[in-house]
């Protein structure tokens, strides 16, 4: 066993404190894992391949996002969503789930991109015997969100209200659906563990 015990100078003490500083980041609200739950009003337009049916419908959705900020600016996670809408005596349902990525543009304004699998279906409310029409397939979304934090500043993570604006697209084989999404979510950011943060010594070395 090799045991090295050296008395070192006070200068080394300073070095020991900052040795790993390059790997550490100062506390910020948008750090760690996140989970967002919310709702939105939507305006959608669905059209079948042969243009026999075009629907423009208002509706509402419930959505959930969870993931992690991987670097200071980029994050990744999963999302899922379910919405309903009505138009011209037809009811439509839209569901989607998949990957999402986000990039912080400025402050807490983030660009989010989504890709996954989605499903769209409409039923005729006046004629229940008419088979439902729908399609499933790839599902894409792009939007902007802004986190308004209401927890005290200077800590890592916190609670936020997150307004957002998205465009979502489901290019199914029988229907193509475009949705404009405007909504509000409640977001929680876990923050980073103190081992990963640049903190004053009394906090950094807290047992």
């Amino acid at each position, binding site marked *: 066993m090799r045991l090295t015990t050296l008395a070192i100078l006070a200068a080394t003490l300073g070095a*020991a404190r900052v040795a790993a500083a390059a790997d550490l980041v100062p506390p910020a609200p948008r750090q760690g894992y996140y989970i967002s739950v919310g709702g939105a009003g939507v305006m959608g337009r669905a059209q079948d391949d042969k243009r026999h049916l075009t629907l423009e419908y208002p509706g509402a959705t419930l959505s959930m996002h969870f993931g992690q900020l991987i670097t200071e600016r980029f994050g990744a996670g999963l999302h899922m969503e379910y919405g309903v809408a009505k138009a011209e005596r037809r009811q439509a349902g839209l569901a989607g789930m998949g990957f999402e990525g986000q990039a912080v543009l400025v402050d807490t304004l983030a660009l989010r991109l989504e890709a996954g699998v989605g499903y769209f279906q409409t039923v005729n409310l006046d004629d229940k015997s008419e088979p439902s029409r729908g399609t499933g397939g790839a599902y894409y979304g792009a939007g902007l969100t802004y986190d308004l934090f209401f927890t005290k500043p200077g800590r890592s993570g916190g609670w936020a209200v997150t307004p957002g604006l998205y465009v979502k697209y489901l290019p199914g084989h029988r229907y193509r659906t475009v949705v404009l999404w405007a909504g509000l979510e409640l977001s929680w950011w876990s923050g980073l563990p103190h081992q*990963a943060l640049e903190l004053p010594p009394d906090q950094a*070395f807290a047992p």
Partner: protein
Amino acid sequence: MTTLAAITLGLAGALAAAQPAGPAPKAPPPAAQPAPEPPDEAPITKLPVLEKFVEAPYPERARAEKLEATVVLDIDVDETGKVEQAQVVQPSASPGYGFEEAALAAVAQFVFEPAEAGGKPVPVRITYKYGFTLAKAPPPDAPPPPRVPVVNFEGRLVERGTRAALAGLRVTVFRDGGEAFEALSDAQGVFRFVDLAAGAWKVQVEADGYYPFRTTETVVAGERLEAKYHVERTSYNPYDVLVEAMRPRKEVTRRTIEVAEIESIPGSFGDAVSVVTNMPSVARSPAGTGELIVRGSSPEDTRIAVGGIDIPLMYHFGNMRSVVPTAVIDSIDFYPGNFSPYYGRAMGGYLDVRLKHLEPEKANGYLDLTVIDSSLYAATPVGDDAAVAVGLRRSYLDFVLDAVIPSDSPTSFSTAPRYYDMQVLGSWRPSRTQRVEAFFFGADDRMVVVSKTPSDGDSRLKSSTIGIGTKFYRGIVNHTWTPGNGFENEAGIALGYDGVIQDLGSQFKMDFTQTVMQLRDRARLTVSDRLTLVAGVDSLVANADATVRSMGFAPPQEGDTQPVITDRIMTTQISGKWFYYPAGYVEAEWKPVDDLLVMPGLRVDYFDWTNELTADPRLTVRWTLSDRLVAKAGVGMFHQEPTADQVDVGFGNPALKTERALHYSAGAEYRPLPHVSIDVTGFYKDMWNMVGRSDAMITRDGKLVPEVYNNGAKGRVYGADVLVRHELFENFFGWIAYTLSRSERRDPGSPSWRLFDYDQTHIFTALASYKLPRNWEVGLRWRYVTGKPYTPIEGGVFDSNIDAYAPTTGKVNSARMGSFNQLDLRIDKRWVYDGWMLNAYVDMQNTYNRENPEAYGYNFDYSKKEVVAGLPILPIFGLRAEF
């Protein structure tokens, strides 16, 4: 003044001397008085123990003259432990100085814990040496004796998640006021600090590749502080791969995939064998088949082995899972052609799964849960030289289908699809020159589908039941011996069982079982720096039972457009029939000059079904032109037996002979960077004596019978492949593979060439995986493949005999389906806890949901067709807990 009395109550001496008092064995001086006899002469069970020692005064005259001495005495100790009497049995070497008197006076005051015999205290006589030694006076200016440092803070560093000891990490302790110390952890991860002052100390652990660990500890005076710190790595690999040495490349083309690269390749679900389908020279297999189509050859032309031992089945149902889990695999060697004489009985390619040399430093394992199956794996060291691992996997598609399929469904499962497999891997190193490894594994797949409604089409093909079952196991023992002097030997024996059941209702039934034994040995002798000789055997023995019955349904063959229906009822029955496939090979590795490696080889096989002895000469040449550039070429002969149904007297033609191929390939390997390689290989494969359908009638055993098949077909495959590969380096790995090829065939009696079923002109795969911070990993795979050939159906003609339309077809494989392209995406996230890790992943196939054509479906009269698409967008979720 110091008198150091050397007390010698030597155990041996005491045992010899201590005895029930009486006549001493060593005659005491005449003055000695015998001690009282013990009550019953029982043997001594406990020696007396000195409880009170009295220091004798050092005789002054002896001190002045600097004399030292030893006096040997006999001491009689009574049953209470007191000294009854003592006498000198050996005086000092300096009589007259008073040593003897001083010793007698001192020992008279000794007190002992009494001796015992039979559990009772008894009087005994012992021999005792009393030493008189003068203390050494310290030199006048010598430093004071060093104070022994006291460790009062000891800790152990282990890696968070894996629990591996962390050696060589720097640990710093400091506190306000500028006092600081540091230590390095040893091989066991242990660090120590000595004589730390009492109070609070800040502790910091840091090392490249790890998050800093910081905490505060309090040292209490007179107490030893112990701690265990879990230090987190900034990035974790799913498997720690110890690459002992890069195996030198000797073949024209050998693609080796390390396990570390396999786990996160999109579309493979972490399955090692599936990854091979992303290599150049491998065509895309139809969705769900998992077939290995190598350089245009039929899937049965490529053999699959585990450690050189053939196995009958590589995939479970659905072909998403191979039967050998990634955890027991070290790497996969894939040879698309021109392989060594070590491998044989195949004229396409060879896939050899290399098992891990099991050497875990601690117990480890995982539990893996996906939407299709679950698996368990655990490995542990056994002593210093052995280790064992066990694995088990079970699908649960059967539970899901049973739950979701309604009872009134037109199709139901009397046995829902299910599979399981199990493995036991053991490793033992009896000596530095030997290694013994044993691997037992098996798989079982079963499914029975019952259709309640008839379908359109030929009534002879309508079956209400489809049942499929496969089962096999293998027990393999390998022994590697490297005694030195350039010699090494690898011997292996495998015993196993294969079983296949197929039931297509009234149309077709097959029940096949066989026991198999395979023996392999490879001896390698390095004669000189320029010459190495290799020789070996590869023998296979099987004992088979089979019952097969077909009502006019002929087994499908290459080029069939529709199932072939005949008017014959075909049956076969074999019972306890032995098949022998002995083979041997020799190979030389010859370096006529430093940079040139020439490898001539010869393999000789005996094929029992066709009763043929074949010889396959092979030659490979590698020329190292520079540190970065290698030119390579190869040519070789390959033989392969027809399939069982083709040579069976009931279904085919027992007069068939082996199929043959001549492989030519040439190319170059260039390594512009240490972790980047470019491999370009051109290939030509000439095949003849191939089995094809025949409409002729022949005389066999005096009867006119259909020939069914003959060896009149020929084939040729030519093209080139390119592999640009970035090995796992700086968090990234990936490759681009491209194959340009054409595979053609000329059927028996046909004057013209046509495309093989598996011809694919362009095969392009781009694959990449990147490890992101915070234990995220993202991977993608994009593939483009030319559409596969098909035989167009130009219409249908009603056939009253079968009460259905029969198709009219164009030329075989004269049309192509649309091309295939697909993007697969995979994201992994790992959570690291103190003693274990959790990995979650989403593997999304066909991310942009392209409708890739797999086949055409026709209506009842063949007037309309529609594309039968492959897999739609398909997300697969999985969880893995590792400890």
